[in-house]
C-alpha cells in the first residue's frame, strides 16, 4: 500500500468527487427500485433492463436525432416511465390478486427483463455506442490547476441532477396528496381502498415515477461511462439490490444513503487498497455485509411500518 496517498489531500478530494458521483447514480437507480418494493412488496427485476433501454433512448435522441442534452434527459425519463407502465400493465397487474405469491411477480419481472435485453440486442447489436463530443464536452474542469482535482461535465450533471431528483422525490412523497396516497397504498391497500383511493391508479403513478428514475440513472451512467451496450444493466443490477437492502427495503432515504455509501466504498477501495480495482467488489460487499451484521434491517430500516 502506498502510504503517501493518505497524506495527499488532492487525491482524497478527487476520490470524494468520484465516489459521490458514483454514489449519486446508485442512489437515483435504487430510489426507483425501492419505491416499487415499498408500495407493492415485490422486487422489480426488470428495473436494470429499463435503465439500459433508457440509455439507448437518450442516445437515439441526442447522438442520432441530434437534439440537445435536455431533450436527451427528458427522452430517457419518458422512456423509463413508459417501459415501467408496460411492465405494470403486462407483467405485474395480471398476477396481482389477493394472496397471490410475491415470487410469481418476481419471476414475471425476470421474464420481462430477458425480453427487454434481447430486444435491445436485436435492435442495437453488441457493438458499443458512444456519444459524439457535441453532446457533452469530455474535457474536465480542474480545480487548483492541472495537478488539482478533476471533475468532468458529466459528474457535475450527475451531482446536480441527482440532488434535484432526490429532493424532488422526497417532496413528492412527503408533501403532495398523490405522494401521501402512495404511502397509504404502501401501508395497506385495503385501508387505501376504503378511503376511496383507486389503488391501481396509484400503482400506475408509482411505476411511472420509478421508471423515470431508472431512465435518469440510465442516461446519466451512459454520459459518465460513454459506453452504451445492451448488457449495461448487469453492472448496476446487483449493486442496486445491495443498495436497497443496505438502506432498508422500501426506504427511499435509505436508498440515497446506501447509494452514497456503496459509491464511496467502491471508489476508495480502488484508490487506496492494493490491487483495488480487482478486489473492489469483494471489499465493497464485505463492508456491506459487516454493516448488515450491525443493522440487519439496513441503515435506515425500521421494519415494514415505516416504508415508503
Amino acid at each position, binding site marked *: 500500500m502506498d502510504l503517501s496517498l493518505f497524506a495527499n489531500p488532492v487525491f482524497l478530494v478527487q476520490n470524494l468527487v468520484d465516489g459521490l458521483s458514483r454514489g449519486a447514480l446508485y442512489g437515483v437507480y435504487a430510489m426507483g427500485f425501492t419505491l416499487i418494493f415499498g408500495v407493492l412488496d415485490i422486487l422489480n427485476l426488470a428495473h436494470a433492463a429499463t435503465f439500459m433501454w433508457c440509455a439507448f433512448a437518450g442516445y437515439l435522441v441526442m447522438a442520432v436525432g441530434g437534439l440537445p442534452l435536455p431533450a436527451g434527459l427528458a427522452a430517457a425519463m419518458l422512456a423509463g416511465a413508459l417501459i415501467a407502465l408496460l411492465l405494470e400493465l403486462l407483467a405485474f397487474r395480471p398476477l396481482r390478486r389477493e394472496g397471490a405469491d410475491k415470487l410469481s411477480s418476481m419471476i414475471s419481472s425476470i421474464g420481462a427483463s430477458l425480453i427487454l435485453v434481447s430486444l435491445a440486442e436485436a435492435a442495437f447489436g453488441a457493438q458499443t455506442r458512444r456519444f459524439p463530443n457535441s453532446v457533452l464536452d469530455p474535457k474536465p474542469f480542474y480545480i487548483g490547476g492541472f495537478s488539482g482535482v478533476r471533475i468532468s461535465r458529466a459528474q457535475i450533471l450527475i451531482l446536480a441532477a441527482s440532488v434535484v431528483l432526490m429532493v424532488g422525490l422526497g417532496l413528492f412523497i412527503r408533501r403532495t*396528496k398523490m405522494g*401521501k396516497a402512495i*404511502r*397509504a397504498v*404502501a*401501508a395497506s391497500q*385495503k385501508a387505501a381502498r376504503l378511503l*376511496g*383511493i383507486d389503488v391501481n391508479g396509484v400503482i400506475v403513478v408509482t411505476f411511472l415515477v420509478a421508471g423515470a428514475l431508472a431512465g435518469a440513472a440510465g442516461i446519466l451512467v451512459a454520459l459518465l461511462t460513454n459506453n452504451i451496450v445492451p448488457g449495461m444493466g448487469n453492472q448496476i443490477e446487483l449493486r442496486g439490490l445491495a443498495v436497497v437492502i443496505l438502506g432498508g427495503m422500501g426506504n427511499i432515504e435509505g436508498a440515497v444513503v446506501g447509494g452514497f455509501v456503496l459509491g464511496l466504498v467502491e471508489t476508495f477501495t480502488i484508490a487506496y487498497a492494493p490491487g483495488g480495482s480487482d478486489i473492489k467488489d469483494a471489499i465493497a460487499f464485505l463492508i456491506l455485509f459487516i454493516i448488515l451484521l450491525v443493522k440487519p434491517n439496513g441503515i435506515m430500516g425500521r421494519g415494514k411500518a415505516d416504508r415508503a
Partner: protein
Amino acid sequence: MAKLLEVEGLQVRYGGIEAVRGLSFSAEEGRIETIIGANGAGKSSALLAISGIVRKAGGSIRFRGEDITHMRADRIVRLGLVQVPEGRAILSPLTVAENLELGAWTRSDAAGVRAELERVYGLFPRLSERRAQLAGSLSGGEQQMLAIGRALMASPKLLLLDEPSMGLAPMLVSLIFSTIAGIAASGTSVLLVEQNARAALKIADRGLVLSHGAASIEGTSEELLANPAVVEAFLGKV
C-alpha cells in the same frame, strides 16, 4: 321514508365457508341501524361486501337508488358510502393530519375540507393535539377517534361502523357511542355493527340480529330490547 341502502339476498363465500347467506335488509335516511350478532355470524363480511372490498357470491346492493353491486370500492366511497372497518385500518406510518387529509381524498372542495377538518378536531380535541404524531403511536381509543374522524372527512351520506367500541375502556365506549349519536343527529345516516348490543340498541332506531349469515330477528330498537330471544342471547349478562 327514502331507502338509502337496500341489500337483497347478499351472499359471501370464502372457499367452502358460507359467511353470509342471503342477507336482506335496508337502511333509511337519517337513522341509525344496528346489526348485532355472535362472533363469526358474518357481520364484518357483510359490511366489507357492501363496501366492495370482499367479493359478493350473490345478491344485489343499491345505494341512493343506484346499483352498486359490482362497483369498485373507491367509486362506492365517492357516492358517499364510507366504512370504518373492524380493526380501524389506521395508516400507521402516516401522521394523524395526513390520515385525516386522505379521508377527504374523494373531495375537491378545499374550503369544505378545511371546515370539515375543524369540525373533526372540534369533535375530538385529542386528535388536534396529536396532529403531527404518527398514527401508529396513538392509543387504541385515539386510533378509533382517528378512524371515525377520517371517515367523516369524506362527508359521508352513510357511515358503516364495524365494532367501534372493540377493545376500549368503558368511559371511551360511552364517548364513542355519544359521538355516533351526534353524527346521526347532524344528518349522516349510520349502519352500526356491534358486540355491545345494549349500547348499540340504545342509540339505534332499528336493529337486526344476524345469525349464521342471515337476518333472524328485525325490528325497532324497543322491540329488540324487549325480545326474549335477544335478551337471552345478547343482553342477558349485564
